[in-house]
């Protein structure tokens, strides 16, 4: 590519102009760090017409060339769901919203799934959706009433009445797509036939409806999905009764198109309840005890956990030395218990209890103490 310089003066002028062009290039180069301003998949169409006269006849010739704009990778916006509480062995599923910040259609892939455990065994059956596809685009021209325009040929991945997009904080359903047409050169006149952009009709879901001029040219529009990206885990067993365990679930999401960077999501916390029952025992009377005195023992078993129940709760309490059990004196929540008689039902293997105050007299208890509940057991002995 040689340029002939016929005069030194031309060279000097050209050098000055080139220098200015370099400066201008730098000035133009600065905004590159910001959002790409053209849709991925857009066509830049250049046509040139040479007009000339041969004798008395006016003629023309044309040439054209097309260049396609790349999609540039951009970190998506991932919105975390609310953390859940479960029990040992409980299965939990999290559903994320993911939105595109890119100028074009791209595939977002997940990796490095973490379920960091504290006070609980490792989570099992952990999974996260492998990848999500999202459309993106940059508007051309100002918006119309309920419509925006994007370059021709960049809308094939959108589905009418299914795809949802967001512009800033507002969300819309794509309810119409008019394809537009490609730029071309008129063979008869040599003139440019400009591209007709694609028009998207967007129906408001939440936020601000689109009106004429409300969305400026060069605005990024990103598809979002609310059910496509999910993570799941099954909780292990808390390591310490009475101390809840937690998992922090996070993963990395990367774009297929180059130019972007990986995003590590912030952790979603799963709480694994670790309830622990507490027990107190009192006796009455405590003074003036002589042989023949009847002592009443009161045992209170409490499950203080705000959420989780405890199961298989059994109370074992041997008959104190130097006393004789008073037959059938055991009461659970003031109701007679199963298996009572001459022998205390509290000696090994012990008495299954619960917090039920309406249990049928003599019926077996369930062994379940729900969250925030207690059971009261009383029995009597005679001092030997």
């Amino acid at each position, binding site marked *: *590519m040689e*340029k*002939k310089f016929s005069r030194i003066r031309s060279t000097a002028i*050209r050098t000055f*102009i*080139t220098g*200015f*062009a370099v400066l*201008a*290039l730098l000035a*133009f*180069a600065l*905004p*590159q760090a910001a959002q*790409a*301003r*053209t849709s991925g998949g*857009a*066509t*830049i*169409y*250049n*046509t*040139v*017409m*040479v*007009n*000339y*006269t*041969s*004798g008395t*006849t*006016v*003629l023309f*010739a*044309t*040439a*054209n*060339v*097309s*260049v*396609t*704009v*790349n999609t*540039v990778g951009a970190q998506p916006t991932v919105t975390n769901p609310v953390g859940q509480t479960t029990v040992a062995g409980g299965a939990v599923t999290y559903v994320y919203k993911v939105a595109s910040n890119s*100028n074009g259609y791209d595939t977002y892939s997940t990796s490095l799934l973490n379920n960091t455990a504290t006070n609980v065994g490792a989570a099992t059956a952990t999974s996260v959706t492998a990848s999500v596809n999202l459309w993106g685009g940059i508007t*051309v021209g100002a918006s119309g009433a309920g419509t925006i325009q994007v*370059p021709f040929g960049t809308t094939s991945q959108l589905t009418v009445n299914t795809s949802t997009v967001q512009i800033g904080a507002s969300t819309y359903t794509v309810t119409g797509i008019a394809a537009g047409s490609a*730029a071309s050169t008129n063979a008869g006149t040599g003139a*440019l036939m*400009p*591209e007709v952009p694609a028009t998207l009709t967007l129906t408001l879901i939440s936020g601000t409806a689109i009106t004429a001029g409300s969305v400026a040219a*060069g605005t990024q529009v990103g598809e979002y999905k609310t059910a496509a990206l999910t993570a799941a885990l099954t909780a292990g067993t808390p390591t310490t009764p009475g101390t809840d365990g937690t998992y922090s679930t996070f993963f990395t999401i990367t774009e297929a198109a180059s*130019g972007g960077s990986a995003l590590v999501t912030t952790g979603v916390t799963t709480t694994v309840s670790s309830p622990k029952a507490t027990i107190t025992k009192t006796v009455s009377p405590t003074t003036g005890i002589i042989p023949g005195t009847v002592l009443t023992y009161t045992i209170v078993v409490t499950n203080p956990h705000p959420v989780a129940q405890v199961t298989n709760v059994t109370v074992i309490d041997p008959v104190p030395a130097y006393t004789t059990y008073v037959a059938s004196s055991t009461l659970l929540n003031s109701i007679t218990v199963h298996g009572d008689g001459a022998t205390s039902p509290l000696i090994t293997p012990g008495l299954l209890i619960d917090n039920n105050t309406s249990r049928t007299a003599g019926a077996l208890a369930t062994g379940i103490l729900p969250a925030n509940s207690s059971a009261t057991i009383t029995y009597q002995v005679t001092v030997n």
Partner: protein
Amino acid sequence: MKKFIPLLIALILLLFSVQVFAEALITVHMKAEKEVTVNKVTKRVAADKVNPGDVIFYTINYVNSGDKEATNSFLDDPIPKGSVYIPGSAFGDNAEITFSIDGGKTFKKPSLLTYEVKVNGKMEKKTASPEQYTHIRWTVNVVPAHGKGQVGFQVQTK
């Protein structure tokens, strides 16, 4: 036989004129390129795909393959949509380069490309910036028989 001689001469003259009546015939080719740097060496390659912000180098070669010179020759190029003209980048051998900001109706040198806008109720004259250029024109005037030339310019992808 004598009657046919004028007709014969006319025929021969007609044949002759077909052979010596030359025409200008210009064809034009355009290519788009971008610069890539590999191992600190920068070179130009065909631009099939570009990133937003990339510079596209357009080079236009024209050839007059005819036997007659072409007169009143000029090349017009609408600046491609989706790109911005890089000021000072237009070049062309023996070409006067002018620009349009009114969709190709009028062409002027950059310093003469002005428009008026109302500022605080008063009309002010402003010089157009390259983002407002709509067309480039290279006025070559004469392309000799079997002559050729090259023009070009750069844009930055938006």
